[in-house]
Structure formats: structure tokens, C-alpha cells
């Protein structure tokens, strides 16, 4: 799997090309943390991430994925970027100081700019039965996120059921996600982002078509 290995990064970052991060780092990160927490507590609910970034790296990773990275990633969380998101490397190195994982299974956070080339989900760290929290959180940049149609989601944090339509995912994604559900409490927590929209699909959520 071709991830963005540490060796591929340039030795000296080109600082002039760097964009600034949060305008008000402490409060923006707190606000973003609360919104991610709310999204995880209410799976399938599409929320707007109302925090302001002064600058972004080039596409495909957008406003929400970079806000999540600046909020949650630091020196202790290896990051994996898919090949399409290579432009974000210097930005994340500068603002998060995080190490980069060369393989998906070494990453705590994985950012996927091109969901069509998403690696099979079981290639990411799924945790162990003793330590299920030692798993990866996936942040996937999708082309559309809408409530009220699409997948029927059930599980903790959802009253009865809710509907979430995610566009831009390969069809195999849902089969792979269904296979992971049997491994609970091991599994992957997934955040779908689209521009400044955010919706969560934690490992505890069940879905049907």
C-alpha cells in the first residue's frame, strides 16, 4: 500500500508555501473538539464545523479534515495520508508536529482525500480485545453528506434510527465495514467530512441499506 512514508518528505520544509492554521488556536481547537465529540455521540448526524482556519493546504483535504487534524493530532499520534493528500504533509508537520506512518496499520489517524483509492478497512489498526482503543480513526473526505436519505443507521446515540447519505464512497466500503462490525469491540471509528460538514460512523453503529 503506497502511503506517504517519512522518507518521501522533503528535508527542509518550504516555509514560504506554508499556510497558517487556526486563527485562535486554543479556542478554535476546543470548539472543534466539542463538535467532533458531539458528532461521535450522535452518529450519522451531519454537523457544520464552525471554526475558522486562516489557511489550508491544497485540495483534496478540506476545512473540516484539517480542523480535526489540528485539534486531535500531535507528536503521539502517527498520521497516515493517502497518496492524493500528499500536499498536506508540510502543513501537518508544521502545525501538528506529528510523525507520519508509512503503513496504514501504524497510524492512529488516517486522512483519506481520495475515497475511491481507500485501502481495505482491515488494513488499518483495529485495536485488540484487551486494548480496543489502540485503533485508527479514519477521516474520509467524501463528495456529499446528507441527512434524511441513504443508509439506515442504528445503535448507541441514535434514537430509533437515522438516515445518512454518503456519496463518493466505493461500494465495497459498506461490505468491509459490515465485516468489521463482527469484531466489536475492535473496529474503526470513521469521520466523514465534506468541506466544513462532518458526520461520524463510530464502530458501535449498525447500518442497513
Amino acid at each position, binding site marked *: 500500500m503506497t502511503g506517504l512514508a517519512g522518507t518521501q518528505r522533503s528535508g527542509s520544509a518550504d*516555509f*514560504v508555501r*506554508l499556510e*497558517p*492554521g487556526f486563527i485562535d488556536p486554543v479556542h478554535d481547537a476546543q470548539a472543534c473538539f466539542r463538535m467532533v465529540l458531539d458528532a461521535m455521540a450522535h452518529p450519522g448526524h451531519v454537523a457544520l464545523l464552525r471554526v475558522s482556519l*486562516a489557511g489550508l493546504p491544497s485540495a483534496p483535504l478540506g476545512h473540516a479534515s484539517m480542523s480535526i487534524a489540528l485539534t486531535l493530532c500531535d507528536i503521539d499520534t502517527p498520521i497516515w495520508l493517502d497518496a492524493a493528500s500528499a500536499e498536506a504533509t508540510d502543513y501537518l508537520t508544521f502545525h501538528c508536529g506529528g510523525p507520519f506512518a508509512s503503513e496504514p496499520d501504524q497510524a492512529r489517524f488516517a486522512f483519506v482525500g481520495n475515497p475511491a483509492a481507500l485501502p481495505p478497512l482491515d488494513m488499518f489498526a483495529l485495536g485488540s480485545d484487551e486494548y480496543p482503543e489502540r485503533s485508527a480513526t479514519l477521516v474520509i473526505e467524501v463528495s456529499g453528506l446528507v441527512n434524511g436519505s441513504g443508509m439506515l443507521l442504528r445503535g448507541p446515540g441514535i434514537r430509533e434510527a437515522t438516515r445518512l447519505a454518503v456519496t463518493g464512497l466505493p461500494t465495497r466500503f459498506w461490505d468491509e465495514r459490515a465485516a468489521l462490525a463482527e469484531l466489536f469491540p475492535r473496529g474503526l471509528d470513521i469521520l466523514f467530512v465534506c468541506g466544513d460538514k462532518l458526520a461520524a460512523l463510530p464502530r458501535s453503529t449498525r447500518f442497513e441499506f
Partner: protein
Amino acid sequence: MAENCEIFLTRRQWLVALAKARVEELETAWGELADKPNYRLLRPAEAGLVMVRGRIGGTGKPFNVGEMTMTRAAIQLIDATGQARCTGFGHVAGRSARHAELVALFDALLQDPRRHDALATTLVAPLVARQHAAKSANAAKAMTSKVDFYTMVRGE
């Protein structure tokens, strides 16, 4: 860049001088700067802790002396077309956000060949001279209490 300068200063030298300067000195220099550049904060000033290490043991091995508070900032100069040009970094001891920002600003300006010579002469050179004089005066004061143990023979 640096080869064309009348006063040869390495970046390390000017960063040391700026970081050790008093914030009022830098504030005055910034206030007196004729054509102030546009700039943006690449990293707003943030305070943190750094571990200070030194060789203070008898064997010369590195030793964690302790943690100290440090503030850092990074700025980018913006040219007339709105493009970022030079990036400056400031790291200062203590919690003065403004000091870190000013160090970063002057660091960026000193990297600009058109501004380097003027700033090196009017700002950095006097700072270095003042800091050197203060250090010498302090050392001279300490020297008055130095004792030479001529008669002591170490039992080796």
C-alpha cells in the same frame, strides 16, 4: 544573501541577539522602522515548556537541568502581490508573546537582502554590543571574588 552584507551576521547570531534583547528595545526599533512590511502570523505566539539540558555533571554527560517556559511564534512577510515571501521564527525565554512576534518579524526582515544591512547596523550590532558589555561587566564583577588556591595540592 549574507555574503553581500557589510556586517557579516549569521542567522544564529541575530536570533540570539534578538531573543536576549529587552522587548522595549525591539518595540522601539519596530516603531522607528520606516516602511513597515505587511505580514501574517503563520503560528501565533504560544507558550510552552522546553527541557534544558546541559553538561553539568563531573563526567560531562548531558543532564536534564530542568524545564523552562518558552514562547515561540512564526510570521510570514507578505509582498505587494499578496504572496508570502520570507518566514521568520522567534523563540524567547519566558511568556512574552509580543517579544516572540517581534523576534520573528525581525528575523524575517533580516533575511531580506534589501533590508539586512540597515537592520544589522542599526539594530543588531548595538544589541550585540550592549549584551556583550553587560556580560563583561557581570564577569568582571564576579572576578573580584575569585580565589586562586595556589597552596592547595589536590591529593591525587
